[in-house]
C-alpha cells in the first residue's frame, strides 16, 4: 500500500500511456501492421537505457556483472538498430505510383 501511494504519479503515468498508446496504435491501417510491429519492437529496445544505467554503476573489478552488462548493452543495441533499420527498409518500399 505504501508502495502504491509512493508511486501514485508513476501509476497515473502508466495508465495515461496505456490509453494514449491504444488510441494511437488503433488508427494504424492493416497495410502498415508489419512496419508498426517492427518499429514498436525497436522502441522496446529503450531497455538499453536501463542497461547503460546499470553498467555505469558496476565496479571495475566485478567481472560477472561487467560481462552480463556488456551482453545486455549489445542485445539492447541490436534490438534498436536492427528494428529501426529494418522498418526503414520496409517503409521505403511503400511508394505510391508515379
Amino acid at each position, binding site marked *: 500500500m505504501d508502495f502504491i501511494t509512493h508511486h501514485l504519479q*508513476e501509476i497515473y503515468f*502508466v495508465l495515461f*500511456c*496505456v490509453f494514449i*498508446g*491504444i488510441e*494511437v*496504435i*488503433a*488508427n494504424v491501417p*492493416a*497495410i502498415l*501492421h508489419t*512496419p*508498426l*510491429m*517492427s*518499429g*514498436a*519492437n*525497436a*522502441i*522496446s*529496445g*529503450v*531497455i538499453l537505457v*536501463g*542497461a*547503460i*544505467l*546499470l553498467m*555505469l*554503476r*558496476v565496479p*571495475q573489478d566485478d567481472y560477472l*556483472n561487467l560481462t*552480463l*552488462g*556488456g*551482453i*545486455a548493452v549489445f*542485445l*539492447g*543495441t*541490436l*534490438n*534498436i*538498430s*536492427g*528494428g*529501426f*533499420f*529494418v522498418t*526503414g527498409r*520496409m*517503409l521505403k*518500399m*511503400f511508394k*505510391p*505510383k508515379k
Partner: protein
Amino acid sequence: MHAIIEIGYLIATLSFLGGLKFMSSPKRAKTGNLIAALGMVLAVILTFFAGTTETVPYTNLIIMVLAITVGTLLGKRLSDKVQMTGMPQLVSLFNATGGGCAMLLGLMEANQIKTEITHFGNQVLLIAGLTTGAIALTGSIIAERKLAGTVKDKRGRAVIFSARILLALLLLLPTLYFLGFIPLDFMAFMYILAIIAMVYGVLFVLPIGGADMPVVISLLNSITGIATAFAGFVYGNKAMIAGGIFVGAAGILLTLLMCRAMNRSLLKVLAGTFKNNKTGQIEEDQQIKEISIPEAALTLSFVQKVAIVPGYGLAVAQAQHICAQLQQLLEKRNVSIDYIIHPVAGRMPGHMNVLLAEANVDYACLKEMEESNENMKQYDAVLVLGANDVVNPAAESNPNSPIYGMPIIRTHKAKQVIVVKRSMNKGYAGVQNELFGMDNCSILFGDAKTTLQDIVNQLKLL
C-alpha cells in the same frame, strides 16, 4: 543539468509516440520511423550524461562503446540482408534480444542490490521484468526457428502439461519467497526463476501451430514491451515506462486483431488446439471445373475489374514479383486490379502488404477485407492465389464447419472466381471448400509462381 535530462527524456518519449502516430499513413510512416529513431539516440546519449556525474571506470565505458558499435553494425547488416519473406523471423530475433536484455538487467540488479534496503515493491518489479524478459527471449527464439522451418510443432500432452506447471511455478515461487518459505538469497532465487522462465518460454511456443504465428509473434512483442516497462519502473525512467507500454499496447492490440481475424480465442491459440476437425460431416462429392492457362489469361484480359486474393501460397512461392508483372500487363489492357488482403495472410500481421510493396505494387491497390466485401459484385473476376480457408463460404453458411464465424473474403459473390492451387488437398483448417464447387468458380491447378508466369507469358502473346 537534471532538468535538461528530464526534458530530454520527455522529448524522447514524445518522439516514440509521434513515430507510432505517423505509422497511420504510408506517406508519413518513413518520417515517423526516423523521429522515433532520433528519440532513441537522444535517450541513450542523455543516459550517459545522467549517469556519468561520478567517475565511471574506463573499462565500463570501453565495454559499452564496443557493445553499442558492434550491436549497431550487426543490426544494420542483418536488416540489409533479410529477404522480405524472412521478415517475421528477423523481427522475432530482434524481439528475443530485447527480452534477453531485460532478463540480464534483472540478474545484474539481483547481483548488486541489498534486499534489506530495497523496497519490496521494487523486488517484485525486478522479478516481473526478469521473468517476462526470459520468456520473450526463449519464446522468440523458438518462434524464429519455427518460422525458419527447423523446429516443428510439438503438441504432445507432456509439453503442454509441463508448460502449465512451469507457469504455475513462476507465479507461486515468488509468493512463497516473499512469505519467507524459500530460504535462498535474492540473487540465487532470481537465477532459478530465470531458468524456469526460459524453459517456460520454449514450452509455451512449441505447441502453437504454424498458421497461428501472427498471433504468437505479436504476443511475444507485447511481452518484451511489458518487460521494458517493468524495468522502467525500477529505474523510475519515464522514457522506458512509456516506450515499454506503447509496445505492449501495440502487441496486445495486434494479437487481438489477429485472433479476431481467425475467429479464435487467444486461449485456444495458446493451447495449440485446432486440428480436431469434423471432416466426416462434409460431403465429398464436389463437382469442380478446371480452367486452362490460356482460358484464364483470356478471362482476365477481357474484363474491366479484377481482384487478386494473395495467400500463403503466394508468399511461400515468392510469387509477388510475377504477380506485379501480371498487374502491369493487365493494366496496359485497361483492366484495373485490386488486391484484397485478409488480415492473417502471411506470417505476421500485415506481412502480405510488405511482400506486395516489395514488388512495387502501389498501396492504393491494396484493399482491406471489409471494404472489398461490400462491393465484391463489381469484380468481373477474382484470382485467388494460394489462399484457401479465407475464401471458404462455409465460414458464413455452415455452422458445423470448424472455421464457422471466421471473417472471410466473399469471393463467391464476384462474377467469376479463378482459384490457383496445387492440388485438392485441404487447407490449414482441414475442411473442404464449398467455393470450389460453385458455378462461378473454376480451378487452375499449379504452383502459384509457375502458373502466374504461364499466364504472364500467355498475355504477352495475346
